[in-house]
């Protein structure tokens, strides 16, 4: 659907930027949970960037929704930004956008109130990030044909690859993670093997050397 108003262009542009920012937030969030670092930057940069870019993403999405509403070529009620099925125009795709935005708002509000909330609740809401991104991505691809060809398609594919790589990295780590109850046993086996076991032979050799 080709609109010619400035609002329509602004909405599409802020939408693309929002997708980029959201991709960055997810990758940074995974980096935080893995205690990873960005080369050349201190550790607090990773957490700071994650938090600040998430707020920036919300700001861009707010503009993205607002400009789409203000554009007169199609009629989109403002509620469609957060309420599913509220728009008759592209009902399905916009619903996906509203759902992902709702999840984002829940994640940010629970994070701002984190000290007062149950830890399990915060974590459960924050894990919805893994749902939020694919839904936002589907919304981006489907609600306008921008991302379906040209360099914007390359951009979209790039974002998807980045998320896929980060999530695989996270899953690989989770698979290797020992449950709490097994951690002590693992460290004991490595550092304090029982006398008479093979581990203790290795320790004795280490001493003899």
């Amino acid at each position, binding site marked *: 659907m080709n609109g010619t108003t400035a609002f329509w262009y602004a909405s599409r542009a802020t939408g693309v930027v929002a997708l980029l920012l959201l991709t960055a937030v997810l990758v940074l969030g995974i980096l935080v949970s893995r205690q990873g670092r960005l080369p050349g930057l201190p550790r607090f940069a990773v957490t700071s960037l994650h938090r600040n870019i998430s707020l920036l993403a919300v700001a861009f999405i707010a503009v993205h929704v607002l400009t789409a509403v203000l554009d007169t070529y199609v009629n989109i009620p403002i509620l469609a930004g957060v309420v599913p099925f509220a728009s008759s125009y592209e009902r399905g795709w916009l619903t996906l956008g509203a759902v992902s935005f709702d999840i984002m708002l829940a994640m940010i509000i629970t994070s701002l109130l984190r000290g007062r909330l149950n830890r399990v609740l915060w974590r459960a809401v924050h894990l919805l990030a893994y749902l939020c991104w694919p839904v936002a991505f589907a919304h981006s691809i489907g609600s306008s044909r921008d991302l379906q060809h040209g360099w914007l398609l390359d951009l979209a594919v790039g974002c998807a690859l980045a998320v896929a790589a980060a999530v695989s990295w996270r899953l690989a780590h989770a698979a290797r993670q020992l449950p*709490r109850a097994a951690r002590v046993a693992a460290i*004991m086996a490595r550092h304090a093997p029982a006398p008479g076991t093979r581990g203790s032979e290795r320790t004795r050799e280490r*001493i003899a050397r």
Partner: protein
Amino acid sequence: MTTTEMDSPAAHPAAGPAGGLPRLLPPVPGVPEDLRAHLARYGRPPYLGGPGLLIRGAQAAGLTGRGGAAFPVHRKLAIVAGARGRKVIVANGAESEPASRKDALLLRVAPNLVLDGLQLAAEAIGASEALLYLHPGVSQEIWRALSQRAAAGTDWIDVTITEAPPRFLAGQESALVNRLGGGPALPTFVPPRVSERGLRGAATLVQNVETLAHLALIARYGPRWFRALGTGQEPGSMLTTVYQADGTSQVIEVEIGAPLRTLLASQPQAAEAQALLIGGFHGTWLPTAQAASLTLDNATLNRHGAALGAGVIAALPAGRCGLVEAARVARYLAAESAGQCGPCLNGLPRMAAGLAELAGRGHRRQVRADLERWAGPRSLITGRGACNHPDGTVRFVASALTVFAPEIALHAQGHCSTTSRRPFLPLPDGMPTTEDDWF
């Protein structure tokens, strides 16, 4: 003044207003506990009708907890009694220290005293729930006592028994509340203390079973009677588990402040002790020469860096290697870590490994520096966990490094002062590896 449970049934003065020891342990050992006999001797529990009298009595008597922390009982009672909302009382019989047998014995030979104390304290705080937390295998006499009491109508509140897993930390206050609430027996971060917010949010009074038994007697005979034994600051009697140098062990009820050497067997043909462990696995090793002149009260022991703890006293026989014993215990303590806090999870296994290396033949120089960093006076492990398991373990290891320093020097040359590597201190087999092990 001491009396042992294993003494021949010679005449001992009965506990009571006129008597000395024993107070908790029965005067004639080996007779199974029976509610009728208990009632004949003590009468029914003297319910006092409210918090005031029992708390004042506990305060005047100066009763402190016998579970190891020696916290003033009246203060805990007052905190819980004064709290808003529901209150819960838990009798802690989960004697998690492998070397301690006093609670198991008390629950076998005097369960009704313990249960009396539980009932009296429950009434005093206005508890709506009463629990008894026990390791499996302890509870046969308890079940019988409970059913007899139910039939006789002596109890103010019903008591529920909950099983504690066989973990060293299972009896720790917050771990206990965690377990009773349906979770694993893992310590939780304090504050809030369980006496303020414990089981399902209710103010929870947790008392060791021996403490409750003392309380049951104080309620009958009064604070002055209680103070007839013990010191001014630490009145009363306590149960100790003593490991003699000849390999035997007993549970002995002793007056607080009695000389330590009265606990130790003094048969001339028995092996002499090379060192004494005071206070169990979170306690302190002391050289025999120093320890034998001490008295059994915290005021004296604290001056020497030790404390009574849960009353375990062990004399290391001459034929055993103290380093090997210490290394075995340190390994056990490391394996029993909850694994929740970085310094404990990482530090205790490495500390145990270091001690094991010292107990071997020859060690790397690095080990001494490492152990100094972990267990020395400026320990990087003490105070950095959510409970005091790392602190207690460091105390044990640090005192072992001091007392067995000559042994360390010998081992560094590849020698040992003894030939026997037979284990002395009791340790359970196996270690926890799955989440189920904590339930």
